[in-house]
């Protein structure tokens, strides 16, 4: 039927994988460094203005979200899409060329983002810090991804789009909509002739700005940290384990549930603020409802392993993916709990929030990207994965790191929340702010140590990946399911 010499072309997938590894390390080294800064504030002074928490924090969040996670998303997309659509990207020079252009422009954008934020250029909108020229380039990069995506879909031999493709398409459409609306901004120099040409101000003001910002901010979590990662797990867990998805119907139902509900939950970031009360309540309610579709996907993944749980013991890749799914369940239960108004009164602005974010991002997002790249490595290079033992060690070191991270932040957050609102019999505040800082110091140190363990695991991942590329244990044919790995 097809040309016998035709093969899947992994070039663009490989390039994005390299970027995922590099950005993973950069983003999380910076994150760990600023975690130590919170525990030991003198570290803020080591590199002048370039080493302060405020300058480095956006670099950490932007690099892990838009560098590491999106590189992982693109790498897996250019791998998975070809396979589930049964089409090689090399079959169309145009689509292949656009995919390559997508990569190179993305690289320019990512580098520009890091440099401009290090220089202090920021819109001051959380997770949307990139200034307007970078936003324009983001749109170009995103459109190129869309053309490559729909180009591949147009060329497909497989009529039905596998569920992972639905999630990749949703990532594309969701981010496009959110990004455009939240980044509506006025470049001040070109409108008033004053100020820096890079500088801009938001088109929205006050409460409206806050509402649009958190509609975007929360859905950036949805469409960068959740939706593409579900796309990844729906392909890689069945493929690595050799088990079809437990229930394809459940995957469809969860998809539509997630798409509908997620977009309404953002206002839970603004509880007890100046936005209308009904909107706060709506954010809470939709957050609770969100447990259903989230758990629908997670349980579907765990049930996919039904009767095959021995693989959990035998394969570190399955360990990464099953724990990722479990962390997804933990995180998607914890988030809704935090969005209940009475819980939010205690939790908001405390360290419980970064604790919640990190059990999702480290346990769910990073574990899935790590597992996906290591699953792809033997297929990329036709070689066995260099070391199973190293992977096992990485898994346990990183899991320990995550547990240290979120448990310390739970304790710190709840302590902080309780201390802030403690009053004496006359209604005077019982503690000053510095009292909480003193109490929290040990937990900040534990958190930073947890981060450090995770980063050590990232270096093990990078080492294992590079050694796999150079391994002399060559495979004669592409493995069908479980990835072969050396001792």
């Amino acid at each position: 039927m097809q040309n016998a010499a035709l093969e899947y072309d992994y070039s663009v997938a490989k390039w994005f994988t390299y970027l995922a590894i590099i950005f993973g390390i950069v983003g999380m080294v910076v994150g760990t460094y600023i975690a130590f800064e919170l525990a030991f504030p003198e570290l803020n002074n080591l590199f002048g203005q370039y080493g302060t928490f405020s300058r480095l924090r956006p670099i950490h969040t932007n690099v892990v979200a838009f560098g590491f996670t999106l590189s992982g998303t693109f790498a897996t997309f250019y791998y998975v899409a070809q396979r589930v659509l049964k089409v090689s990207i090399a079959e169309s020079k145009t689509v292949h060329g656009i995919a390559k252009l997508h990569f190179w422009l993305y690289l320019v954008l990512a580098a520009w983002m890091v440099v401009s934020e290090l220089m202090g250029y920021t819109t001051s909108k959380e997770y949307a810090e990139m200034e307007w020229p970078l936003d324009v380039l983001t749109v170009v990069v995103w459109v190129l991804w869309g053309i490559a995506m729909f180009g591949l879909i147009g060329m497909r031999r497989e009529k039905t789009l596998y569920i992972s493709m639905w999630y990749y398409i949703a990532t594309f459409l969701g981010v496009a909509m959110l990004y455009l609306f939240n980044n509506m901004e006025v470049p001040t120099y070109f409108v008033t002739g004053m100020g820096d040409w890079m500088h801009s101000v938001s088109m929205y003001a006050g409460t409206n700005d806050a509402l649009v910002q958190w509609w975007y901010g929360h859905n950036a979590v949805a469409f960068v940290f959740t939706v593409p990662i579900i796309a990844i797990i729906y392909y890689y867990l069945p493929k690595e384990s050799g088990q079809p998805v437990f229930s394809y119907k459940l995957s469809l139902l969860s998809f539509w549930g997630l798409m509908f509900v997620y977009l309404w939950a953002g206002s839970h970031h603004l509880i007890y603020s100046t936005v209308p009360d009904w909107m706060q309540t709506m954010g809470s309610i939709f957050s609770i409802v969100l447990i259903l579709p989230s758990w629908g996907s997670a349980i579907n993944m765990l049930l996919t392993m039904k009767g095959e749980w021995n693989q959990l013991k035998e394969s570190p890749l399955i360990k990464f993916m099953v724990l990722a799914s479990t962390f997804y369940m933990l995180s998607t239960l914890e988030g809704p709990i935090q969005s209940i108004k009475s819980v939010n009164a205690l939790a908001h602005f405390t360290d419980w929030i970064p604790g919640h974010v990190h059990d999702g991002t480290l346990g769910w997002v990073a574990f899935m990207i790590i597992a996906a790249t290591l699953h792809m490595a033997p297929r990329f290079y036709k070689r066995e994965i260099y070391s199973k033992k190293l992977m096992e060690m990485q898994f346990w070191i990183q899991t320990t790191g995550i547990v240290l991270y979120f448990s310390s932040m739970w304790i710190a957050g709840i302590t902080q929340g309780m201390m802030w609102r403690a009053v004496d019999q006359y209604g005077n505040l019982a503690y000053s702010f510095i009292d909480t800082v003193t109490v929290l110091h040990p937990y900040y140190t534990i958190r930073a140590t947890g981060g450090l363990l995770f980063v050590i695991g990232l270096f093990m991942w990078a080492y294992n990946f590079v050694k796999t590329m150079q391994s002399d244990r060559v495979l004669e044919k592409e493995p069908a399911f479980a990835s072969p790995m050396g001792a």
Partner: protein
Amino acid sequence: MEQIRELQAYGYFFFTVFLTVVLYAYIVHLYRAEKKGTRNYEKYGKLALDDELHRAPVEPNEDEDEMKENKEKK
């Protein structure tokens, strides 16, 4: 003001009922399509497992085949 609140409450209630019906209708639709034999959703789980380029598609894309045939005719 009170009237608007009352309308909002009715609107909210019926919208919730509507969405619940849509959700359950979708589940019924999925199962009914399988029962009637128009679709077998579970076979799509194989799309991830049988994904080698040279294997026969789980469900061939007819448009693609037609396009190829047209090209050959030309």
